[in-house]
């Protein structure tokens, strides 16, 4: 079975631009979460979706938005990019969010802002 896939793997943008990152969860998984990881830190929670509904939002500005599609894939959108948005963006999926179900991660999208 394919794992969590993210596209693109790398992306270079300039300040003020917009970016869309994509994620396909493991087949059968209904939950997708997005994280931002900067060097030397743990992943920071951005959004969480379950069954196409937003189930949580981290402490990120409104420039960040996301959605989950009927096939459970997801997009993360970031508007008006800032230099500080440069990071590894990770997508994780799980069958459910309940209990101790672990999330399974993709390899991330490395976003660089010039």
């Amino acid at each position: 079975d394919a794992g969590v896939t993210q596209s693109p793997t790398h992306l270079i943008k300039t300040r003020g631009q917009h970016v869309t990152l994509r994620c396909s969860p493991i087949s059968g998984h209904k939950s997708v979460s997005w994280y931002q990881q900067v060097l030397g830190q743990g992943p920071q929670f951005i959004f969480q979706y379950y069954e196409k509904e937003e189930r949580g939002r981290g402490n990120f500005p409104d420039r960040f938005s996301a959605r989950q599609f009927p096939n459970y894939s997801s997009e993360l959108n970031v508007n008006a990019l800032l230099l500080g948005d440069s990071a590894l963006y990770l997508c994780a999926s799980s069958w459910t969010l309940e209990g101790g179900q672990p999330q399974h991660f993709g390899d991330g999208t490395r976003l660089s802002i010039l």
Partner: protein
Amino acid sequence: DQQVKQNSPSLSVQEGRISILNCDYTNSMFDYFLWYKKYPAEGPTFLISISSIKDKNEDGRFTVFLNKSAKHLSLHIVPSQPGDSAVYFCAAKYGAGNNRKLIWGLGTSLAVNP
């Protein structure tokens, strides 16, 4: 406010010896704790978890111990192998139903020397 703390940024051990990675937490609402391993340029990989009602969980070379009164958990790797060299993240879950959140520590970089 860091609710999940990994106070050792790095750890170096000899191949064949025990690696002990530590994690402290502050939120009494956490009910599951998970350990992930991350290699460079890859997403985190789930290793092992423990429920807050347990004090030990073992899976092959990996054992996690939970001391709830001290709000402390540790991951033991025995015997350590060079392939275990990676960044290890402690993460904790809380919340109800499908509104659960996963909070991450900053990670500990483990180097296993041949």
